[in-house]
Every structure is written in C-alpha cells, then in structure tokens.
C-alpha cells in the first residue's frame, strides 16, 4: 500500500506541474499582446539569454564538434570511410547535438537564474507588490523572459552549428591530416536546408520549454531561502528532462 500511495502522490504532483505549466503558457500568450509593451525589458532579457550565453555555447559546441570528428574518424577508419567524417559531424550537429546541448547549457545558465530571481521576488512579496501596483506579473516578468528565450535560442544554435563544424574541421585537418578541400566538400555533400531548419525549430521549442519551466518554478516558490534553492534546482532538473523528452517526439515528428 505504501508503494501505491507513493506512486499516486508522484502522479498527482506531475499532473499538478503539467497543469501549472499549461496554465502559465495560456496566461503568457494572453498577456503577450496587451499593452503596455515594455520594450527595454524585452531587450534586457534578450541580452541576458542570447548575448551573455555566447561564450558557453561557443565552447560547448566547439568541443562537441572536435570530439565528434575524433570519434567518428577512429571508428570510420576501420572500414575506410574517413571521407564521411565531415558529413557525420555536420548532420549530427545541425539536427541534434547543437540544439540539445545548447538548450541544456542555457537551461543551466539562464533557467536557474530565472527561477532564482522570480523565486526571490515571490518570497519577498515583490510579485504581490507588482500585482498590487496594477501590473500583471505574468506580463511584466514571464512574457519578456519566454519571448527572449524563443527568439534567442535559434540564433545561438546557428552559431553553435557553425562553431561545431569548424571544430570538426580543425581536428580532421590539423590533427588527423584530412584534406581541407575534400573535408569541406564532404561536410556539405549530404547536408540539406531541412537539417538546419529542423534544428532551429527545435531550438525555439526548447527555448519556450526551459524558460517557461523556470518561470513556473520561480513563480510558485514557497518557503523562504530554502524554497528559492529548491525552485532553482528543480528548474534545471525538470527543464533539462523536459528538453530531452520533447526532443525525442520532435525528432519523430520533424523527420
């Protein structure tokens, strides 16, 4: 009975979370198109999500591209298919690795900050104060953060695609002695526009998911400093899990 109880409680909590997520999604959409529009706040959030994440995304995708070239080269050399390394690097980066790894890194960097910020505002009554001053907190806090994430993630992924492929090129040419001209040719031989666009679509969806999860977590924080810590952790954990979960279904849908 204890076990059943525990399972039941977990299911209920999951459903509550999902309910909050979709409720917040609805409210955020509803409040997106009502004045006043706080343009400076939108830009501030875009800088925080996009521009400030460039170093992290740069390093992550650079090393991913490099290790990908290294691994596939070693493997493919066993059946003399070294010429395909460029294609494999390009395809796996644009379709899968750049969007997912960027989303996970940005969730850790930005999602945690969002949850902590909103959580602190909740426990210090700043969110109540916003409401009391006739400003809808969802409009003022959630909409700019989610919009910035949806907009900036695709740009970060385009950067990630380029940097990752350059990383693969560096390793293949400088370290493994591949011919630079044929490597570049091979890279683009099988790459189609749809590979890149599907990655970009994924990125936008991931941006929506991680930012909304973080905002919901922060918004419903209770229990002082400890609660803020809990919300921050959960924002990163549930955000990352949701990204991976949705990634599978999106891949199934998009290809």
């Amino acid at each position, binding site marked *: 009975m204890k076990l059943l109880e525990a399972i039941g409680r977990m299911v209920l909590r999951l459903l509550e979370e999902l309910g909050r997520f979709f409720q917040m999604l609805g409210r955020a959409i509803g409040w997106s198109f009502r004045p*006043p529009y706080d343009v400076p706040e939108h830009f501030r959030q875009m800088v925080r999500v996009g521009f400030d994440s460039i170093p992290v995304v740069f390093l992550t995708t650079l090393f991913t591209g490099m290790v990908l070239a290294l691994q596939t080269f070693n493997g493919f050399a066993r059946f003399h298919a070294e010429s395909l390394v460029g294609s494999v690097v390009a395809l796996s980066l644009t379709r899968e690795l750049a969007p997912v790894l960027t989303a996970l890194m940005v969730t850790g960097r930005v999602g945690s900050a969002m949850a902590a910020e909103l959580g602190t505002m909740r426990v210090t009554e*700043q969110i*109540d104060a916003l*409401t*009391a*001053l*006739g*400003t*809808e907190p969802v409009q003022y806090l959630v909409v700019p953060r989610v919009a910035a994430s949806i907009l900036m993630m695709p740009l970060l992924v385009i950067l990630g695609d380029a940097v990752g492929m350059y990383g693969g090129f560096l390793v293949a040419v400088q370290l493994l002695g591949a011919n630079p001209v044929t490597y570049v040719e091979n890279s683009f031989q099988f790459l189609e526009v749809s590979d890149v666009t599907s990655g970009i679509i994924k990125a936008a969806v991931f941006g929506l998911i991680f930012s909304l999860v973080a905002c919901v977590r922060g918004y419903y924080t209770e229990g002082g400093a400890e609660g803020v810590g809990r919300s921050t952790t959960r924002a990163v954990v549930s955000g990352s899990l949701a990204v991976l979960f949705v990634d599978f279904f999106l891949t199934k849908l998009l290809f």
Partner: protein
Amino acid sequence: MSRRGEPPPAGTSPKIRVEDLRKSFNGKVVLDGIDFSVAEGESLVIVGPSGTGKSVLLKHLIGLIRPDSGRLSIDGQDFWSFSETERTAVRKRFGMSFQEGALFDSMSVFDNVAFPLRRSGRPPAEVRQRVRECLDMVHLPNVEAKRPSELSGGMRRRVGFARAIAHEPEILLFDEPNTGLDPIMTDVIDEVILELKERLDVTIVTITHHMASARKIGDRVALLYGGKLLYQAPPDEFLRSTDPAVRQFVDGSAEGPLTVEFDRERKTAASEGA
C-alpha cells in the same frame, strides 16, 4: 448590484464590502466568515494579535488572494466576477504598502517610486516631480539613487509607503505601517496617513497592533481574532469597551479570551510531545 463596467450610483454602496469571506490554508481555517464594509473616505483600522490572519485579510481586499468563498465588492462591483484584465485595472485604484516594504531590489529607490507612474504612461518630468513629492512626504530626501539593499528596514518601509501613494490611489491598504519604526517615525507615518485622509479623501484600511496609532488614524477600529471580526467601534468607544477580548488586547494582558485557545493548543502540543 450594478453591472460590470457601469459606475455605481453615488453614495449607495460602500467603497469596500466584504461578505462572509472564508479562507483556509492546508486545512487550517484562517478567515472564518468575515463581514464588514468601509465607506468612501473612511479609515478602518484592524487590530489583533500576531498570527491571526490580519495580513491575509488585507491581501484579500486587493485580490492578491482568492477567497474560498464569500464576496469582495469594490464600489458595489463583485471583484472576482471581473476578467483578469479588468481586475488589473481595478487594482490600479489601490495603493498598498507591505510589511517589509517589498521594494523591487533590482531598481533604485527612484525607479521604485516611479514604477506605477511610468506604467501608467506619465511624462518623465511629471514622474520626477511626483517622486520627489512622495519621498519628501515620508521624510526621505537624497536617497533616490540608492538601492533598496543600502537602506535600513525603516527606510525601506517608508519608500514602500511612498510607492503606494505615488499614483494617488482612491484606496490605501497599509500592512503594519509602523511596526519596527522608532517612535518618531511611527508618528511621522501616522501624520502622513492622516494628511492623505484629509487632503485626498482616500479610503484607508490599516493593519496594526499599535493601539496609539489605531486611535490616531482610525475612524473605526475592529478586532480580528479566530478568523472573525469580533468587535467594531470608533476608537474611543473601542478603548472604553468592556468586551473581554477587546479589554485584553487594549490592556495588553497575557490572560484572557484571546490566549485561551493558544494555551489549549500549547497544552495539546505538549501532551502529544510527551
């Protein structure tokens, strides 16, 4: 009841009316059927021991908390029958000062007080002038550029106060406006409340456990205990009341009807612990 959107006929309905308001948190009943109304231009002070749900009641008045049952009407219009957008508009007619100030810590003092003004699209020159006025009113010149974290608790409270009155609201809600302030500042805040009341004809609901303030700023004083408003009367009558609960609170005695339940809870807790 007037229909939504239409202004009610003048003088017919109280500014705020609360009917049979009930609220529990996790099975614990906090508000157990509250009824009262506040007339336009009136100042109601709600007193009561700590932890009896005074803040919860105040937050209900501006719709920060949704009651489990009961009605809240502003100018005769049922608050919770409004849409989200309409509720936001109604809240703009309120000003609320929070217990710990609840200042936006990412903004300077100036931006905090300017926040409601800017959100309603006032021109920058007017905003600057109004912010000065409000900060002068709470005796806080030369702090505009500071961050809330650089201020003392009492100063933060006063900035929160200035922010609450900046957009010249019709209804003001004060959550413990002078708890933790020195006696001089307590009096300054009381004076500001009185001044606002006389000059602007605003409706005021204040929560406090300072009987001296209650007497000074209240047209009517009500005692909240056990989730109910036990007694309502003008301050002088309140102070003279022979109601045992009121007497205990006014005299500040440890023994009386207000502590009976507390004692019982403590005894139950002790016997369970043993």
